[in-house]
């Protein structure tokens, strides 16, 4: 993936003003799933925002990532309803199944695990969102089969 991208595409909808920094970063994040450093430098220049401020914003908000993410983004909700219904144990199990010590990306870049505080599906707690699909009523014994659904492309998909 080339990181020397042309920001024109992203700035088409947003006048080059400092106040549009966040929407521009959001569009970049949506396309690349992270914020490459060269892009941040260029954004600073084009929007006339000090680079330190760009990094301040990029590291302040949880939605932004400075590291590339895996093919599948697994977001586990740790909201209050999910917490009392056992989300911490689901998270633990998820990390163990993927050999991760803490939320992050697996070595093969297949999965990135992130915690999120409330996706608003509290009636179905505990909830895990993989890419754009929300999975309700997770328990730790369902984690393995959930991950199998998103297995590497070469392997034949396991039966749920």
């Amino acid at each position: 993936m080339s990181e020397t991208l042309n920001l024109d595409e992203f700035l088409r909808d947003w006048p080059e003003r400092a106040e549009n920094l966040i929407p521009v970063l959001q569009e970049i994040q949506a396309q690349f799933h992270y914020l490459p450093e060269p892009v941040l430098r260029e954004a600073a220049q084009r929007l006339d925002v000090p680079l330190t401020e760009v990094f301040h914003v990029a590291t302040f908000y949880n939605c932004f990532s400075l590291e590339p993410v895996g093919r599948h983004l697994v977001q586990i909700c740790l909201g209050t309803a999910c917490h009392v219904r056992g989300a911490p144990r689901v998270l633990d199990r998820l990390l163990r199944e993927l050999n991760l010590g803490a939320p992050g990306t697996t070595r093969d870049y297949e999965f990135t695990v992130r915690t999120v505080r409330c996706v608003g599906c509290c009636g179905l707690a505990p909830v895990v969102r993989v890419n754009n699909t929300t999975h309700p009523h997770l328990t730790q014994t369902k984690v393995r089969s959930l991950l199998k659904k998103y297995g590497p492309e070469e392997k034949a998909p396991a039966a749920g």
Partner: protein
Amino acid sequence: MPKLQSVEELEALRTACRERRDPQRPCLTLCAGSGCTASGAHDVLRALRRAVERQGLQEAVEVKSTGCHGFCAKGPVMIVWPEGIFYNRVTPPDAADIVASISNGRRPVERLLYRDPVTGERVLREDEVPFYRRQRRILFANNGRIDPKQIEDYLRVGGYTALRRVLAALTPEQVVEGVKRSGLRGRGGAGFPTGVKWEVIRQQKATPKYIICNADEGDPGAFMDRSLLEGNPHSVLEGMMIGAYALGVGKGFIYVRAEYPLAVQHLRVAIAQAEEYGLLGDNILGSGLSFRVRLVQGAGAFVCGEETALIASVEGRVGEPQPRPPFPAEKGLWGKPTVINNVKTWASVPVIVNRGADWYTSIGTERSKGTMVFSLVGKINNTGLVEVPMGITLREMIYGIGGGIPNGNQLKAVQIGGPSGGCIPASLIDLPTDYEELTQAGSMMGSGGMVVMDETTCMVDVARYFMEFLEEESCGKCFPCRKGTQRLRQILTRISQGQGSEDDLQLLDDMSWMMRETSLCGLGQTAANPVLTTLRYFRDEYLAHVREKRCPAKVCRELITYSIEPTLCDGCHACVRVCTTDAILGEKKEAHTIDTGKCIKCGACLEVCQPQAVLVS
């Protein structure tokens, strides 16, 4: 579609929309809110459409997706109109029967009807379901009836009638006066009288003025704003338009959190449709009012629900709050007068205009008027969104509407108001849900999140959980909050691991008061509420943790042990299969044992053990 040039044209369009639809024509409305979508609603929708086609009923039967009905635990839910038959837990294979029932003399599909857990009987209509029967759905009245992506549906149910009334017959002062008289209080959490806030804005001389809808809904456990935005976005827009008229505002912003993609999508569609019809833009309905709305997405920061931090975020900066005064009503977005209100507050405005301030004051208590929308979640049978008159007791909420605690467990506490709120113990279950009453008990109304907890919830763990959350979300600008949340979290973690002492309890208390008195913004000032309320009402649990190194609820991992009762174990081996540390030993058909040295207390074995032979002590 040419833009509407006058209120008369609006009414003519409304009549045309109503005439286009035969109210007797069967309509299947399926909830496609985030909750039911997660439960497979889109597959059901496809199956329904296919079944209608196969049975040749495309002209006769309409299939529509709607917003959230609020009863997520029983989703996917749907209603068959015009009878109002309510079906729950609908799956794609049910589609054929549902569609067939329309032609077969409209006899309902029995197995999909809601079954009352007490009487065992099936009920037919939504308003007969105990969960809904005791609610008073005003803001959510139309969520099960309209397609949020069709402005015509909103017009059909009377949408934009309030706007018409205001533009045709009321002065801005009269609108503000009406909102004041209604007693409407901000539904975002603080409960500030909306009319008073609006009056302050009216008095400001600086221009331009701005309107912001706070749709950040950061409280974990709260999802009513999400449901309203997904299911009836026009109701919020209409409120903002009325506000724009009353306060002389030309530009509005809706700040939606990033974690709500469906709400963002539906808002975009609603704004585009409103612009197309000339309800947003210049010279709205020929009244001279010009108002535009822009959608701004949050980027994942709880603190951006705080109004000055939200403003900073809209301005492209980090969400760091500012000291107040000056308040946003005087100096807000780009230093100009800005009125910020919550989603539900905006949605309440058209209701008040249509039905009158006096009608509104007839609902609720002396100081808390109108209805409140709670998200009733956690250890409760009927989880979902509940809209009730202010003043209803917690008992009524939990047992009358919520159906009580699952598995025959006992109610222990209710956390109200999110991380800024507090835990109300079961002994106070007859407390009315009123702003002042809840604050006096140490909690707060907040945005309406209500998390129910039973004896399997450890209150020390709850306090630690909230402090962990707030530590992460603290913006870091002021020392009391930045350091206070961190230290409180460290102390609470120590206590939950059996390494705390009684001195720690005093320390928790002292630090909590310090944070409350000296933090810059609401996040820091209320951060200690969960600690203070759990110390106040559940001190015995803290004492058990520090004196006896015991967790009465058997949650805190360092203080519990898992074992297998040999007389109950049938050797089925299910636990061994799920144990990731090989801590369970035993041959098939023989009693198994747990090696506590290897056991990481994940609880997976407990989950799968059918004879319930796994014990936690």
